[in-house]
């Protein structure tokens, strides 16, 4: 009994500290919807109808929920990718490219081997995606540590390389017969199971959540994660403490790229079952926003990704039901990011609220 009491009080204090941490984020999200409502009113729509349609679209039925989590899954990966590099003091804004090359590599692995059992084929294809993403992270890492090229520039540039390179690949060498720039379908043995048919939600979301936990554990509870964080917070001090700063940076960027690549693999193996040119509507860029909205914490990242996923899936329902243009979703996303990255403003509003209360 007593042990149980201790456990619940521990959970309670953990929840409380989590809520305290999420305070500015929650307020930012509420503010975004408030300003969004103003925009809706100004353009002659009913914010109430629009938001209700959006909410019911995102969570109202099985299909909506499936859509929401399907959309959230790749964003969890790319946000985790951004987060991991960020903890090492690096801005990997090229998750988009790492995701795309990971997706193509996974598709090719899924196509190439026909006769292997699923329990080998799926991990193999996932690994191929992670390796390709990791390679896309390794290049800027080497450019940074050897030549001093800033990773913001190189990761972004390599994103474009990835987009056009994969586009070429599925337009020429690996093009499936037909008009669409895509590969042939992957073998059935490489397909990640769908978990909420008829929606496209696949087991990839379990991998995403598992990786969130894994990354949290790695950063907080391992010597490697310690070295990564030390490097991110104060490189000269880390160096004095015997940490090989360049090595940690390279590893962090490779792992970051691999996580994004894994996300791409999950899309191919779980959702599309083949590589389609332009399949990503910008998951990599959303990941950056989600990492920030999620407070650069793995659990926050999952929640923020679900929010972004809900905006995407609910947005479509809203457009169908109320005729509000889908652009309001983009506006809301932008507002959330804006308010999250303006913590000064939030703190000011909170303080004023306290004085009055």
């Amino acid at each position: 009994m007593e042990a149980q009491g201790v456990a619940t009080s521990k959970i309670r204090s953990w929840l409380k500290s989590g809520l305290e941490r999420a305070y500015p984020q929650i307020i930012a999200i509420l503010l975004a919807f408030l300003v969004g409502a103003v925009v809706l009113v100004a353009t002659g729509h009913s914010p109430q109808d629009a938001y209700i349609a959006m909410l019911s679209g995102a969570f109202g039925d099985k299909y909506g929920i499936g859509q929401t989590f399907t959309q959230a899954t790749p964003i969890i990966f790319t946000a985790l990718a951004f987060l991991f590099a960020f903890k090492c003091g690096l801005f990997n804004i090229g998750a988009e490219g790492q995701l795309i090359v990971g997706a193509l590599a996974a598709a090719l692995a899924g196509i190439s081997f026909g006769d292997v059992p699923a329990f080998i084929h799926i991990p193999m294809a996932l690994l191929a995606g992670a390796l390709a993403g990791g390679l896309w992270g390794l290049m800027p890492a080497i450019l940074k540590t050897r030549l001093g090229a800033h990773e913001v520039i190189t990761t972004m540039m390599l994103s474009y390389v990835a987009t056009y390179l994969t586009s070429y690949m599925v337009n020429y060498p690996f093009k499936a017969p037909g008009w669409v720039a895509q590969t042939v379908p992957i073998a059935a043995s490489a397909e990640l199971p769908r978990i909420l048919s008829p929606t496209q939600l696949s087991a990839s979301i379990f991998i995403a959540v598992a990786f969130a936990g894994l990354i949290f554990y790695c950063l907080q509870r391992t010597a490697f994660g310690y070295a990564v964080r030390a490097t991110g917070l104060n490189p000269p001090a880390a160096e004095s403490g015997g940490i090989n700063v360049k090595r940690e940076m390279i590893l962090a960027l490779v792992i970051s790229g691999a996580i994004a690549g894994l996300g791409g693999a999950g899309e191919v193996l779980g959702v599309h079952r083949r590589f389609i040119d332009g399949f990503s509507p910008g998951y990599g860029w959303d990941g950056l926003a989600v990492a920030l909205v999620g407070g650069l914490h793995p659990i926050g990242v999952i929640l923020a990704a679900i929010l972004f996923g809900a905006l995407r899936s609910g947005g479509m329902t809203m457009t169908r039901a109320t005729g509000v243009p889908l652009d309001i979703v983009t506006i809301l996303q932008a507002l959330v990011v804006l308010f999250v990255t303006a913590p000064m403003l939030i703190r000011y509003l909170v303080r004023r609220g306290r004085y009055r209360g």
Partner: protein
Amino acid sequence: MNPAIQMKAITKTFPGVLANDKIDFVVEKGETHGLLGENGAGKTVLMSVLYGLYQPDEGQIYVNGKEVKMDSPATAIRLGIGMVHQHFMLVPSLTVAENIILGREPAKDKVLLDMDRTLREVKASCERYNLEVDLKAAIYALPVGLQQRVEILKILYRGTDILILDEPTSVLTPQEVSELFKAVRALKEQGKTVIFISHKLREVLSICDKITVLKRGKVVGTVRGKDTNLGELAKMMVGREVIYKFDKRPMDGREVVLKVEGLKALDERGLPALKGIDFEICASEILGIAGVEGNGQTELVETLTGLRKATEGKILLNNTDITRASPYERIRSGISHVPEDRYKRGLISDFSVMENLILGSHNRPPFAKWGGRLDLGETSKYTQKLINDFSIKTQSEDTPTRHLSGGTQQRVILAREISREPKLIIASQPTRGLDVGATEFVRSKLVEMRDHGCAVLLVSADLDEIWALSDRIAVMYEGKIAAIRDPQKTTEEELGLLMAGGKSG
């Protein structure tokens, strides 16, 4: 006549900390007033209240007899109060003149920057206050002492009558300190009021007309500089007599721990910084490196700890060549390092006390188990022990070291480095910026390590410190060891001469 500044019953609290407790503080016009106290005594908080950076919980502020509400630095500046912070607020890529006029740029036709007028005006104020500096030099190219002078010029240019100097000497070399004192005297002659924050007794005593001593957020008393002495001030500050002497056991071992042969290295610009260094340190010996800063001491320490590449020469630790060893390998082979810049190199300030205490051993047992998992239980036990042994004043082991006072931060570093049971400790400016209590603690720990058979390389700009601790004194000048002396057989004059590049008999 009304006093320039009168602060009445100022109280300021932070979560869990009573930083200022009903402080009364009066500064007369035209005086140089010292604000003395250990780190964490509340000096900087009090001045931040005066400068409008913090709002007091209680109390009033009067400037020239009028009550004012100091709601922002802009208000303070408007009332003629200027502050030179410990960390300078300059734009490194701009020139001296551009920095001085920043925020108050003289303009032609209200749009174009009038650079001629700028130079003329700034030059005039340089001359008036006898503060010479090359107006066209870029800030990043200037030594710290001159950057500080630019800060002072900047606030004078804004028409400041009351200058607050926050620990102005903590970043300066002895030469720069005497230059600064000249400037402060010139300011006094011009009728300016100066508030001089420091924890260095000698400095305060030599420059200030009046001295107010703070301790734990309260005023201990205000005394006239003329009517007091070092002992009295020290007693006011810490409440006990400070012991400046150390009893050391005679050296027993003569076993050489560190041997450096013909060591050469380059500085950041690629110019030779070490031009052939030779010395040895034995077990149970403290070798003090004296010298004016910038003569290669920083580079020497970095080369010995593996942070900088040696271009020539050899470093032997217990007869093993470690010249090419990585910083990590050197830590493992028994070198501990108390860095000169504890914010930049010594601590990861966003890390907790616990995390900082295992830096360098984080991937080894008992802190890391198989597979590199951190053992938080062991780490916490270890942390609790060090917090006790080294009297680290912290709320908990999870407190980020950023929230600790300078002295406590240095205790964390020292605890980490000493507990590794090193064969050699390299301590660089180990007491810089520390209060009397922490300074004494650091020094006694170094002596204790020496007595236990550790070799100690002490680099310090503080000659008193070198003198008090060293078994032998090496003087560095322009990248070389000018001479090595026995502290019993040398004089302050001889060392001074060697530090200035002179030859001695």
